[in-house]
């Protein structure tokens, strides 16, 4: 028994240690994005090298994890999936019991670092859905849809309870994308969306007051210019005053003079827009589109259902981050704590995103394998 385990471990290590087989276009896209992130962060933090250095360090850590995970073959990941899912969900329960955080209990203190278990679900959720659908007959029928629904609802519900509606929606979206990509019939999708829309008044009833305020403020930001409306107004002023070509790097007055709140984290896109203008925004969105497209390309090249669904769901989730953050900054969507991927300052987000891309790299590297 021990001998067998040892041999398996040696075989695993050998696989991991062989030369990296990453997807070069995707890697270039991510690298460009990370560099753009550091440049923007330098300006948004008023030239704080400590901040930029810390973020660069996290990119290095995330990059290393990316390379490591890219060696793990998808079947291995698939085998681990249920445990990862159960494990991360258990951590969520733990957070509910003894978590700590700023107003919202989202963080778990690990002694060395504080860490947000809900971040894990962004990856383990699509993994779990892909794992469940992998052996099934596709497109899925109602029974499978209901099971997937339950798999999504449990962690999403726990996260929404924390309360962190933004992340809950992102996690749920990641699972839903896997379901969508599995070929779920359009009429079923339509029916489900209709049902969800019907639930909105009920959801409103269960929302926290601050969540309601954010949505109400979005509809009329000027009603509360010093409270909830402040973020939306100042962010739009930053974006709008940037114009077509922007004010130039390090010339964002909104950020430099602290009018823009959270200008290194959730609202860094506003700084970017103010400094680089519509041209910069279009270029950045194009870069994101390229990365998402490349993810979906890798998904289409994969040979097994698990890999396809997982890669596709990760790519599409990436879109949601960009869309939700961009929509928030531009005053289209309510203020939710969703960072702009690889641009916003913040460790957990950057590292967990790179880990997801590690999974993609692995799927790409093992696309020719059949299990």
């Amino acid at each position, binding site marked *: 028994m021990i001998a067998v385990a040892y041999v398996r471990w040696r075989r695993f290590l050998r696989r991991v240690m062989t030369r990296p087989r990453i997807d070069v276009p995707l890697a270039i896209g991510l690298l460009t994005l990370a560099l753009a992130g550091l440049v923007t962060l330098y300006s948004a933090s008023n030239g704080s090298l400590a901040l930029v250095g810390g973020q660069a360090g996290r990119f290095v850590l995330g990059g290393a994890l990316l390379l490591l995970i890219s060696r793990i073959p998808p079947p291995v990941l698939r085998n681990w999936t249920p445990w990862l899912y159960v494990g991360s969900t258990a951590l969520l329960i733990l957070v509910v019991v003894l978590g700590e955080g700023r107003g919202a209990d989202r963080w778990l203190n690990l002694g060395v670092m504080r860490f947000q278990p809900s971040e894990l679900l962004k990856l383990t959720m699509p993994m779990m859905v892909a794992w469940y659908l992998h052996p099934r007959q596709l497109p899925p029928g109602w029974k499978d849809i209901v099971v997937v629904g339950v798999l999504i609802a449990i962690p999403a519900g726990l996260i929404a309870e924390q309360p962190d509606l933004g992340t809950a929606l992102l996690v749920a979206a990641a699972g839903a994308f896997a379901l969508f990509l599995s*070929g779920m019939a359009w009429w079923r999708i339509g029916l489900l969306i209709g049902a969800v829309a019907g639930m909105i008044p009920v959801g409103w009833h269960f929302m926290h007051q601050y969540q309601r305020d954010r949505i109400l403020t979005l509809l009329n930001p000027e009603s509360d210019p010093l409270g909830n409306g402040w973020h939306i107004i100042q962010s739009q002023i930053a974006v709008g005053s940037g114009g077509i070509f922007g004010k130039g790097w390090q010339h964002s007055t909104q950020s430099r003079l602290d009018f823009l709140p959270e200008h290194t984290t959730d609202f860094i896109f506003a700084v970017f827009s103010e400094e680089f203008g519509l041209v910069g925004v279009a270029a950045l969105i194009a870069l994101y589109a390229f990365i998402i497209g490349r993810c979906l390309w890798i998904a289409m090249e994969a040979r097994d*259902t698990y890999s396809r669904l997982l890669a596709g769901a990760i790519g599409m989730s990436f879109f949601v981050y960009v869309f939700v953050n961009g929509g928030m900054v531009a005053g289209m969507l309510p203020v939710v704590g969703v960072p702009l991927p690889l641009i916003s300052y913040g460790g957990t987000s950057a590292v967990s995103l790179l880990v997801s891309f590690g999974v993609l790299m692995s799927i790409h590297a093992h696309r020719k394998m059949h299990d």
Partner: protein
Amino acid sequence: MKIRRSIKDNRGESALFRRRALTGFVLILLGLSMLVGRFAFLQVMRHDEFVTRAQNNRVKPRALPPARGLIYDRNGVLLADNVPAFRLEVVPEQVPDMPAMLAQLGKIVPLGRDDLDAFRKLLTQSQRFESVPLKMHLTEDEIDRFAVNRWRFPGVDVVPYLIRRYPFGRLFSHVIGYVGRIDANDLQQLDPVRYKGTSHIGRSGLERSYEDVLHGTPGYELIEVNADGRTQRVLETHAPTPGKNLYLSIDVRLQKAAAAAFDGRPGAAVAIDPRNGQVLAMVSVPSFDPNLFVNGISQTDYSALTGDQDKPLYNRALRGVYPPGSTVKPLIGLGGLETGLRTPEDTVVSTGVFYIPGQQRGYRDDVRGGVGRVDLEQAIEMSVNTYFYKLSLDMGIDRFSAWMGKFGFGRPTGIDLMGESPGVLPSREWKAAHFKQPWYPGETVIAGIGQGYWAVTPVQLAHAIATFAGHGVAYAPRLVMATQAGMDAPLKPLPNPPGGPSLIRNPADWDVINKGMQMVIYGARGTGYGLAKGFPYLIAGKSGTAERFSRTTSAYNNDKNTAYLASRHRAWFVAYAPADHPQIAVAALLESGAWGASDAGPIVRRILDAWLAAHGGVIQGGERLPSSSASASGAASAGGPGKFPVSGSTGATP
């Protein structure tokens, strides 16, 4: 599992996935295009709007209040200065919990109830983002203690400012007045643009009447602020124009001498240059320290001032009204000459009592039994009531008040101070308006000795004497001689044209009265005999002792106790010098004086001495007397062995 597996149609699934992924990607591109569209809308369509708002966010105009003009005396001695000080200011918008902040702050910098009341009043008047002064004039200790604790008080700052300082304190408080903090009531009346950033405004005296000149024009600077409202840098500065400096015609040495001469006794004195109306000294005793009012006077200090029975806040020179008594007799005599009712040689016999023909009521002379036959000059010298009883009766009240009105009685003199009392010049119309009663001849008689309804202010009387001394040319009294725009700028004299041609048609009439008034000083029976002892130039003067109360009997009063008399009388003395070329006219009043000449006279003399000293002992244009002489000059009259004092008037009112 294996069975299910074989059922799975991998190829079909792959194709299905491909379709879904492509559909998904198209939807994603659609979503991202929407996003770019939204950014384009903000950055292109609404660009201008947001540029303006970003600008308004960060660039705030800040008013730069002008420095208040300084005030100097005629020789450039500084009378009102601006000195740097520090105050606490609060931006309400940045204070999360105002009552808690004030409570906490009060433990570090003591905040009086006056400070807090004023602050709350201002708070309701100002915008949330405007800085409101909380406590003025911080001590070094308070500044240090606040600096250490500053981080605990967002929105509270120590701000430098200029504070008004009156180096001579009480000496000029009734002339210059004082500035006070602008309060909520002022804000409703002031031009908000001109007074942006200004904390003080002239409250009384010249500070008030010359507010427009002293204030200046505010400038502004454009500052870049961060979201906390803290200044980052100054983008543009438009400097304020400081207020103009004022040069008073007052000489600080005369002012000091005048104030000291009262020795604390309530009264007032005004000295005017008859040639141009310039006020050389103006005091009202007792006085108060104007510096107390600058930062808002404390309740205790204020009660002390208002509770004082000598009323130090009361400007007697400008607002106090007193019967002029005998001081106006020379002007009445002049009226007799000018109207042709008298010649200088006409005489009247003083028997001690005067009767209106056909009436029983007697009007007394001051000396029992009278002084005999007197002409106009002697009547002035000895202040003979009977002469003036008869003269005024002959003139009649209408001609009488028309004549005296020309000297400015019964209306404000037009001095450059606010709140001047017009006094009362008795006339048929005035009585009809105030008492709805006809005029009685007896009232004309007592008007002839400056009693009855007649009431004048010291400024008014000084102005009238100056008008006479200036050969009948009236100038409105002026305290401010010149203005100066900036420290090194040339002085710009303020014009003060005469009020009209001379009131005196025949210059010889002036000479007669002038001579009579010199005899008051130099005549052996003159009421002011001896006052000019040792003074090298000719003085002309007139005493006045006005009754404070109506007499109830016509009996002579034999009580000569000084304190008793002082409680009944107002003591006046008016004079000008040099009598042959008048350059200063003085009126002094003691609210409680036994005799005009002996009590108010020395005050006038001390002012004249100071005036002479200020000129280095030499007066251009005046004829210098032989040093031995107080008895010199043609003014010495053949009078009996007059005893001093023979006092001014005693009046009788019906």
